[in-house]
């Protein structure tokens, strides 16, 4: 911009219009017309696809979070409890050994609570396999003590195990390690699967952005050419496309988020209403960190969509112009 100021030359007048020109209104001055028209970037169809992608992404992320919470609850319960099972040749021996074991437990530092499960409760646990009343009649049902322990004791049960064996021969201490490991593995697998779904959905967002950005570029070929010829850099054009895709992505992502939150809310209500009140399945509520994490999903979707479009356009411009 080092050339002459054209307005220093005599003006061009066609003689057809007199009087002062109309001023630009505040609205027209403030309005930033996009350099790439809305129709060229896919518009409503792209918004709809992003909404579906966002919906699935939010559900996948919710699954990751809910499984994580449930696994933490399960393993935390298992890690804070141990079970002592006491066998004997008859009920008297079991009772005697149980008393000895209870004394050991009550005198052990780190034992928070020790509860003896009654014979009838223990027999009831066997009823599904043996039938009602048969357990007590035909079996010498072992005594079971549920023990809540502090973390320090949980990490080193050998001494307690030895003391119990000395005081109550036939006492077996179960630290639930095998259950804990199996649950942890199952939870990790579930989380990995849900996260893989999330990544696949994000991959779909990338793919649709690539397709739409290339289609938009082809539809706006003349505009892009003019922008180049008046001095636009590839970065400038890519930024215009990125802005456009960010807006489309945001619209779609918000719609998808709302739909997913509605679906999750209904699922939470259904579970709380009785489908699984006593169920082993995790309970969840929409609130706190879960909501915050889920709100991040549309932001990630927008970011992925816009960034993919930008990179696609930069590459396409290098190839085509």
């Amino acid at each position, binding site marked *: 911009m080092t050339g002459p100021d054209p307005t220093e030359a005599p003006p061009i007048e066609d003689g057809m219009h007199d009087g002062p020109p*109309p001023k630009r209104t505040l609205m027209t001055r403030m309005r930033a017309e996009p350099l790439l028209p809305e129709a060229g970037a896919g518009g409503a169809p792209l918004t709809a696809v992003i909404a579906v992608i966002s919906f699935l992404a939010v559900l996948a992320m919710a699954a990751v979070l809910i499984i994580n919470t449930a696994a933490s609850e399960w393993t935390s319960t298992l890690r804070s409890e141990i079970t002592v099972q006491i066998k004997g040749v008859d009920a008297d021996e079991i009772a005697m050994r149980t008393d000895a074991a209870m004394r050991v437990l009550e005198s052990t530092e780190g034992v928070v609570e020790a509860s003896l499960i009654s014979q009838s409760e223990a027999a009831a646990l066997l009823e599904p396999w043996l039938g009602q009343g048969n357990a007590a009649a035909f079996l010498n049902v072992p005594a079971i003590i549920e023990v809540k322990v502090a973390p320090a004791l949980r990490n080193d049960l050998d001494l307690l195990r030895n003391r119990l064996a000395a005081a109550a021969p036939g006492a077996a201490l179960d630290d639930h390690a095998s259950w804990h490991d199996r649950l942890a593995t199952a939870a990790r697998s579930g989380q990995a699967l849900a996260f893989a779904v999330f990544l696949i959905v994000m991959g779909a967002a990338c793919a649709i952005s690539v397709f739409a950005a290339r289609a938009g570029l082809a539809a706006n070929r003349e505009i892009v050419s003019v922008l180049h*010829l008046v001095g636009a850099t590839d970065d400038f054009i890519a930024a215009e496309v990125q802005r456009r895709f960010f807006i489309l992505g945001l619209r779609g992502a918000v719609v998808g988020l709302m739909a997913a939150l509605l679906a999750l809310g209904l699922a939470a209500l259904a579970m709380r209403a009785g489908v699984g009140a006593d169920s082993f399945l995790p309970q969840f509520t929409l609130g706190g960190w879960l909501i915050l994490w889920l709100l991040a999903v549309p932001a990630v979707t927008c970011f992925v969509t816009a960034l993919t479009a930008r990179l696609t356009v930069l590459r396409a411009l290098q190839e085509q112009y």
Partner: protein
Amino acid sequence: MIVEFEKAGLAYGGEPETLSDISMQLREGEFRFLTGPSGAGKTSLLKMIYLAHRPTRGKFSLFGEDAMNAQREALPALRRRIGVVFQEFRLLDHLTAFDNVALPMKVAGINQNQYREDVSELLNWVGLGHRMEAKPPTLSGGEKQRVALARALVSKPDLILADEPTGNVDPAMSERIMKLFVELNKLGAAVIVATHDLHLVQSLGKPVLRISDGRLTRSSSLGGQA
């Protein structure tokens, strides 16, 4: 030196050369008409100068820089020093006249507050102050031509290229536009105007580049006042 070609050639794809052995120079403050029959290569030559295409052989420098081998990233800065009035206007239909004229400023990253007055003044100057908010489909051919002219001039370019700038306006307006280019040339811009209108060329008496079958045949003046 503003433009310099030395034995430059241009071929599209694997086709025979559209332009061959182009050698010419345009210095600061010079004015050239570019004439020749339709299909002779006038537009192709201008396209090479405004970097829509680069020569496929020979040498080409723009504003003293080797434009033939310049990196892609260097081209926008060179293009911003050129104002082009395209034969088909090439206005963006979804933008207003104001936004079309402001386009070179926007792509240069200039804030609207800084160019708003300049663009308004320029549109008034080309007699379209009352049509700032109109979009190109609603403009007449002559109005589009003047919007295209304003867009070419808004960034105060060092080099002005015009491809048949009087093709869509009446004779009186043609004369005014041509005189405008002469005035801008007097103010310091180098100018190349491609035109069929030999009457206008003769009346202004500026040097003429003739092109025929893709070759510059001679450079001369067609008489009139120099």
